[in-house]
């Protein structure tokens, strides 16, 4: 068994037993590995690398119960990283093809009714990960608090706050892209 695997697995088992220091050390070590993993595969876009690292750390945190302690830790970790990477690539492809040519209309037209605006927003939301979509809908459109949302979805409040932060950031990037496109 490689030393890295043994080290990470020891930390993971301690973390699952409630050792917070071990968990902190584990997430830090995983963060380093993930950054290298994503950087090697997404060389041209550094901002996305850090986003993906954070998203994957949250996934690891919220899905830690799916780790079978009888199995090695590294394959579990990289299966999640790979899933997040493919999901990211699929979404960025979706963003380019379904694209947000209509995003400019959201601000271009002055006669937009609430309904049309909501439909445009739905279009923008569709390019976000489903978890972020739901968070933005519930928290920003329906007015739930992050604590209520956490209780409702069974996720931790930090996951909700990070999801909201990341979702809004992605939304504003898309709108900006739409504007740039409209300006050209």
């Amino acid at each position, binding site marked *: 068994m490689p030393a890295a695997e043994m080290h990470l697995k020891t930390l993971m088992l301690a973390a699952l037993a409630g050792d917070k220091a071990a968990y902190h050390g584990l997430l830090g070590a995983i963060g380093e590995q993930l950054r290298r993993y994503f950087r090697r595969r997404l060389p041209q876009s550094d901002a996305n690398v850090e986003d993906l690292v954070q998203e994957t750390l949250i996934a690891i945190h919220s899905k830690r119960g799916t780790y*079978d302690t009888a199995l090695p830790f590294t394959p579990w*970790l990289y299966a999640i990283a790979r899933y997040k990477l493919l999901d990211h690539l699929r979404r960025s492809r979706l963003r380019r093809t379904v694209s947000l040519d209509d995003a400019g209309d959201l601000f271009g037209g002055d006669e937009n009714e609430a309904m049309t605006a909501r439909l445009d927003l739905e279009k923008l939301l569709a390019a976000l990960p489903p978890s972020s979509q739901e968070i933005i809908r519930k928290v920003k459109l329906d007015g739930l608090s992050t604590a209520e949302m956490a209780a409702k979805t069974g996720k931790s409040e930090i996951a909700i706050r990070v999801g909201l932060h990341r979702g809004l950031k992605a939304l504003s990037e898309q709108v900006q892209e739409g504007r740039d496109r409209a300006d050209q």
Partner: protein
Amino acid sequence: MQTSDLIAELASEDSRTSRRGAAMHLLGPLVAGGAVSFVAMWMWLGIRPDLVHAIGTPSYWIKFAYTLVLAALCFWLVERLGRPGAQTARARRMLAIPLAVIIVLAIAQLATAPATIRMHLTMGASANVCPWRIVALSLPILIAAELGLRRLAPTRLIGAGAAAGLLAGAAGAWIYAFHCDESAAPFVALWYTLGIAAVGALGGASGKWLLRW
């Protein structure tokens, strides 16, 4: 937000997990979906009137065991597919066992039967409705299985969806067998299996969208 801040916040939460969590995430919704399906079978089709008599015959138990063993093996496969990086080859190979057994039984029955009733052993009286009813009764279980699977972490969505579909199909067929009075092994091997496979296909097709997390 800085990654180091995120790590500090995540690490401040309780990192303990319950040991039997993963299987329970699946089992809870499945029991609920199965109950819905069973009530639907009862209200819509009714339990076969000769059930008391039928449980004394081996053919009843062949149908019962085929669908239940298949469902149990699929449950195991789905649970593996819900865990990132877990091996699934052994669970997938095991699925061939109940399938092989029912096919061997079907062929043996056909081979030993007089030529004049072979057609009846295969088509029974309900071949045209059997697979459709199995699909219909499996739908609540399929939805339940996919909802449960989403709470785990499937990384191969189409495969995981197909496995959830086979699980739902086998469980739906098991429930349908409380109504269905067909007893020939060739009928079960062909039409039950076809219904189960159709739900598997539905699961695979929907998994790509429904199972994203």
